[in-house]
């Protein structure tokens, strides 16, 4: 085939045969994608309302009046979610880093730390989040602590911090392991101590490498803040439940879902973008 290709044509001679062919393939692919999307959307729009319970579902989940009445209250309740997220996220990052470093210690004197790191990540990655929230959120205030130390905010958030820092620690550790041995060798050959090597050479690179993975964890955390509703704090999920009972209608849940999505979809997209960018840089 290649022998038939035009001999190096001058750039002014218009598109090459390959460019013409590829443009044709692209147009065809776009037409097919458009047609199949229209077909699927039409089928959904026509078929779903034909279901026998559609009118009831519409009234119970997509009630415009209830939506308008409850949406502002839901947004207000969501501020609590954001607040819980905002002060647990840095704690998780720090605890996760601490645990990751514990697991990476080599000195025999620090073996207990290492053991602790292993046990910690095993235990908290092995438990359902909601179970940890129950045990800590109900258990610790049960000690009869004075106000404000019996608040479910504090202990529920602590439960989130404990669980998520186990995951963050594992992600960080994989980042630390991903730094090539030659970087440590270069640092050692300059006479840097192990501590300085970790702090100035390994960690900065490791943390940068795992930013996308950690972003995904923090997006999951934003959603799991809703689990705290089980032990008391009136965040958006619980507020939606209150409205549901008040209006005898499920629309507030749909409203809450929309509010979550407004935050998580952009965040997920951004994490994907970072991940892709990193993959491109590596290849």
């Amino acid at each position: 085939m290649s022998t038939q290709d035009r001999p190096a044509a001058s750039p002014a001679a218009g598109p090459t045969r390959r460019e013409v062919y590829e443009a044709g393939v692209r147009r065809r692919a776009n037409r097919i994608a458009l047609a199949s999307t229209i077909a699927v959307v039409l089928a959904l729009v026509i078929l779903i309302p034909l279901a026998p319970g559609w009118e009831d579902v519409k009234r119970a989940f997509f009630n415009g009046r209830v939506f308008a009445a409850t949406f502002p209250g839901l947004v207000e309740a969501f501020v609590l979610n954001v607040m819980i997220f905002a002060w647990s996220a840095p704690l998780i990052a720090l605890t996760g880093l601490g645990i990751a470093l514990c697991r990476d210690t080599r000195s025999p004197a620090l073996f207990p730390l290492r053991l602790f790191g292993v046990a910690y990540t095993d235990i908290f990655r092995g438990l359902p989040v909601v179970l940890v929230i129950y045990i800590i959120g109900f258990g610790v205030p049960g000690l009869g602590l004075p106000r404000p130390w019996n608040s479910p905010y504090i202990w529920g958030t602590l439960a989130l911090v404990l669980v998520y820092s186990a995951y963050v620690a594992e992600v960080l550790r994989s980042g630390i392991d991903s730094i090539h041995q030659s970087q440590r060798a270069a640092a050692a050959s300059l006479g840097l101590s192990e501590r300085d090597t970790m702090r100035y050479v390994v960690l900065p690179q490791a943390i940068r490498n795992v930013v996308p993975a950690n972003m995904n964890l923090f997006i999951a955390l934003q959603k799991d803040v809703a689990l705290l509703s089980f032990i008391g704090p009136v965040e958006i999920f619980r507020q939606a439940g209150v409205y549901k009972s008040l209006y005898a209608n499920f629309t507030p849940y749909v409203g809450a879902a929309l509010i979550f999505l407004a935050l998580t979809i952009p965040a997920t997209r951004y994490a994907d973008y970072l991940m892709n960018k990193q993959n491109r840089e590596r290849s």
Partner: protein
Amino acid sequence: MTAKLSLRGVRKRFGEVEVCKGIDLDVDEGEMVCLIGASGSGKSTLLRCMNLLEPVDDGVILLDGQDISEPGLDPQPVRQKIGIVFQSYNLFPHMSAAENVMLAPRRVYGQSREELRPKLAEMFGRFGLGDRMDHYPDQLSGGQQQRVAIIRALAMAPQIMLFDEITSALDPELVGEVLDVLRDLRGQGMTMVLATHEMGFARELADKVCFLDAGRILEQGPPDALFNAPREDRTKAFLARVL
């Protein structure tokens, strides 16, 4: 006169494979020693043993007559005296060239950036990198990165410099600029040990050339003798292949 660096019966094995099978070598002050030999003959491992990146299994390494290969000895002070430059540069990718160079003097010698900067500017300038100090490694060519790596090792003011095939990963047209740096160091009387495939360079500048074969120094001597009148058949065969 005692040698600056002496190796006596140095052995190193990785699992089943013995990479160094009893190496004896003397490097005198101000001398430039070139290690030549096929890939896998043990050149790199020998260099890594010299600055204790790899602990030796048996034998002795003496620096100024002092045994530095003793198990349990703190390797840090030794590494400050013996710098090494690697084939793959191994710059820290998240730091600028200048930060790469300053990290170890700052942390180990406690020198400040302000104090280091003039000396650095002088070194970067001398090696043709005057306008590259604040570039990151991925903004530099291979030859520039390797020169930064050399400056980084020199900034610790080592008494001996080890070079592990530092031009092997470079495009041919960049090899010259790195060899020029070595020439410059040679002129200043730096004690150097090079593992190299640049036979022309070894012939031009080395005081002593050692031919390594399967973990042993098979033959050593001044470059003229070794290149022009090798005694061993394996040396002849190797030189016939590379020259």
